[in-house]
């Protein structure tokens, strides 16, 4: 296990450098996890990125680091005490000279090499390369490959930093390369939905969901997908319903605030029976909250999106690979049952990066029940399983979708008997959905200890990393599907000692588990400062809880 922390100002390319380092580590046959800690600032302020690497999969990053690189004074003061014994700290000696670590004049070296714009973060790659014992020429290759603009200067700068550091290499053997690529959670969500059939993504940017839009927009030519950055979230989701009406597989995405604005139309998707994938990536709330950090405060908000009675599916990926398959699965469920679905996730999964192997054949295809008899077509035909066949314009038959309660023709109704018939039809889908879930993995289970730890979403990543450090044996139980909620699969775990871990101050998830499974907890670990747990600290807190109750 080896952790690198790079700290400096926004706009210095820290995140990029961390990515290059992660690539380098991958080239060395290692697995990585990268977390970027940044504020809403474009240049200046303070940012840092952490990459933890190991010879097996890593699921979260560690607070204390083996290599710390500080571009400025503030970074030194904020992070120097995180250095592990035998770790290396490199700071920018142009910012002063400090107690610990090796100072290198990163700024002056940079000014020597570049005309503006500078690229100080290249130095972080050089320092990391030196630390893991990469040769100078391999370093140059990586730099040239990863920093194409000003490639010559970048290489010179990297070499100078590398050289001025001297011999700092630790024993870091190159292992055979393993397959898989490094993705962010949002990339995997985007790709999963796309594999299942996504044609259109309508959105209005909001951290931490924005990078779905950015990724799909960047890949539009390769993927043949279209993205619209609409004038608002209200526009985005109502446009999306229009696109769905034509048969396009469509998704929208936002964080809590934008999702709040989409609720009326989410409810409309329920009424018109529009298959729509809605991606909600959470950050701390309420309101604008803390824009660039992580939280799980939107569970019930997601479960009860939209006014009125209608069915919906809500699920949350517990790991990177699940982000890929689940996004596809949910798009497919949306189309199978013609209803809105929510993929609930958090900044920690959306924006963190980890190695994953994706297999498109594991992803479902978003298919629908197509109308066969156009002549007799009624959009909302009353059927036994509640699913009415779909037909798209242009067509001989008239296809009417209606936000009012309606007859099977799609024409509005206010009649008591018709209201009941149509509500019953929609509600009948529930049986099918529940049956359908039997084919999917509704829970993720990790470990096989006596004590149960419940968590969902990206908290499961944190727990899996903590698991590595636990003496007590635990089983992590993570519902992937939150609505409908599958009780059956976990009934056998009911009489165990149970702990719950979640990222909010109110214990929403505990409330959900308690109301579904009638379970009491020996302890609950809540974190709501926007940050993730250090795996060691989390392991220790769980250990203490278990021992206290043993």
């Amino acid at each position: 296990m080896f952790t690198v922390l790079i700290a400096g100002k926004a706009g210095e390319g820290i995140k990029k450098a961390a990515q290059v380092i992660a690539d380098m580590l991958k080239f060395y046959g290692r697995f990585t996890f990268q977390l970027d800690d940044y504020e809403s600032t474009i240049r200046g302020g303070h940012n840092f990125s952490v990459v933890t690497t190991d010879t097996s999969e890593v699921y979260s990053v560690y607070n204390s680091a083996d290599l710390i690189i500080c571009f400025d004074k503030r970074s030194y003061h904020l992070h120097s005490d995180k250095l592990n014994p035998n770790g290396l700290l490199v700071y920018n000696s142009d910012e002063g000279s400090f107690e610990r670590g090796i100072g290198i004049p990163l700024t002056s070296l940079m000014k020597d090499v570049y005309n503006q714009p500078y690229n100080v973060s290249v130095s972080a790659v050089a320092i990391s390369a030196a630390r893991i014992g990469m040769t100078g020429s391999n370093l140059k290759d990586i730099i040239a490959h990863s920093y194409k603009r000003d490639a010559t200067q970048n290489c010179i700068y990297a070499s100078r930093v590398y050289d001025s550091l001297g011999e700092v290499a630790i024993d870091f053997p190159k292992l055979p390369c393993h397959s898989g690529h490094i993705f962010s959670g949002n990339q995997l969500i985007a790709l999963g939905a796309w594999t299942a059939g996504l044609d259109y993504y309508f959105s209005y940017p909001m951290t931490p969901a924005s990078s779905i839009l950015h990724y799909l927009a960047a890949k539009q030519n390769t993927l043949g997908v279209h993205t619209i950055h609409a004038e608002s979230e209200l526009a985005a989701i109502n446009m999306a319903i229009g696109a769905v009406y034509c048969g396009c597989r469509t998704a929208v995405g936002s964080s809590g605030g934008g999702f709040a604005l989409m609720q009326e139309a989410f409810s409309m998707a329920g009424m018109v029976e529009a298959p729509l994938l809605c991606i909600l990536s959470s950050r701390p709330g309420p309101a604008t909250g803390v824009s660039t950090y992580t939280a799980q405060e939107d569970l019930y908000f997601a479960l009860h999106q939209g006014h009125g009675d209608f069915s919906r599916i809500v699920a949350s990926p517990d790991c990177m690979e699940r982000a890929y398959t689940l996004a596809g699965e949910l798009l497919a469920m949306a189309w199978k049952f013609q209803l809105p679905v929510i993929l609930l996730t958090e900044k920690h999964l959306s924006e963190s990066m980890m190695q994953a192997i994706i297999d498109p054949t594991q992803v479902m295809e978003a298919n629908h029940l197509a109308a066969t008899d156009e002549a007799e077509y009624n959009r909302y035909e009353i059927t036994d399983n509640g699913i009415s066949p779909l037909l798209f314009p242009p067509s001989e038959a008239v296809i009417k979708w209606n936000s009012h309660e309606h007859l099977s023709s799609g024409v509005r109704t206010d009649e008591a008997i018709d209201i009941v018939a149509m509500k019953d039809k929609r509600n009948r889908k529930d049986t099918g959905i529940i049956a359908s879930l039997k084919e999917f993995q509704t829970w993720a289970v990790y470990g096989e200890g006596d004590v149960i730890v419940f968590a969902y979403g990206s908290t499961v990543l944190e727990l899996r990393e903590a698991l590595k450090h636990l003496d007590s044996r635990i089983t992590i139980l993570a519902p992937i599907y939150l609505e409908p909620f599958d009780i059956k699969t976990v009934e056998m775990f009911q009489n165990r000692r149970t702990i719950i871990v979640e990222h909010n101050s109110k214990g929403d998830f505990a409330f959900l588990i308690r109301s579904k499974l009638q379970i009491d907890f020996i302890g609950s670990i809540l974190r709501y400062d926007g940050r993730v747990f250090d795996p060691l600290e989390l392991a220790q807190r769980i250990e203490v809880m278990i021992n206290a109750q043993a």
Partner: protein
Amino acid sequence: MHKLDTNKENTWCPGCGNFGIMNAFKKALAALTNKGIDPKSIVITSGIGCHGKIFDYLNVSGIYSLHGRALATAQGIKLANPELNVICFGGDGDSLGEGLEHTMFAAKRNMDITLLLHNNGTYGLTTGQASPMSLQGYRGISTPQGNIERPFTPITLMYEAGATYISRSYSTKIDHLTEVITGAVLHKGFSFVEILQPCISYNNTYDLYNQKVRIMDGVPSNETVAYSLARNKDDIHIGIFKDESIPIYHEQLLGSHIPANERITRNHRCEIIKSMYP
């Protein structure tokens, strides 16, 4: 062409201007068919309000959308399948109040769709509250002491926003309205038709319009003329204020791709993923 009526009972007030709009719209559909537009390609959306009821009365495909959102829904339809001719029925509360943003942006984008604005200067369906088009002093149930705000001028507003076909007609002038609607639908780009629509229950403007409405001779020669004609309150000019061609949004976004019809196959998707991430 198949029959244009549904069997939904019509519950507009007798004498409502919406009848004229519906008649003209049906005639326009016939005219469009004559001009080679496939009736199957016509898709409508509507907001919520008295105007929106037209959705239930017309046996035409489409979406009865949310209050204020009909134009957003319409844009989604067009972007998914540009071969469709998308026509949106909006109320003045709907399209210039709750959903003003979408109206402005559809015009700004020069989206190739049509907005028919049922301008009755009131919220008809919710019993006559002041709308964004109500005159100052209008006494509705939400402004019993008289509306304080000044109404927008939709024609010039659409100019500002960037609409490329901008017109006004009057619900009693069926032939004129038919022609203007037909032109709007045929127009490539965002077309806007402000329809003066008397609401006999809450804003009976028949006398006013019958006295003041004048049909313009042609499209005003320039914007300054158009603005002054549009804003004239003594003579209310109807006709086409602007008719211009500039590139349209979906062609720039999609080229000739038709997302709804030319979906990428499953196999192709798998291949692409495998080649991106071998």
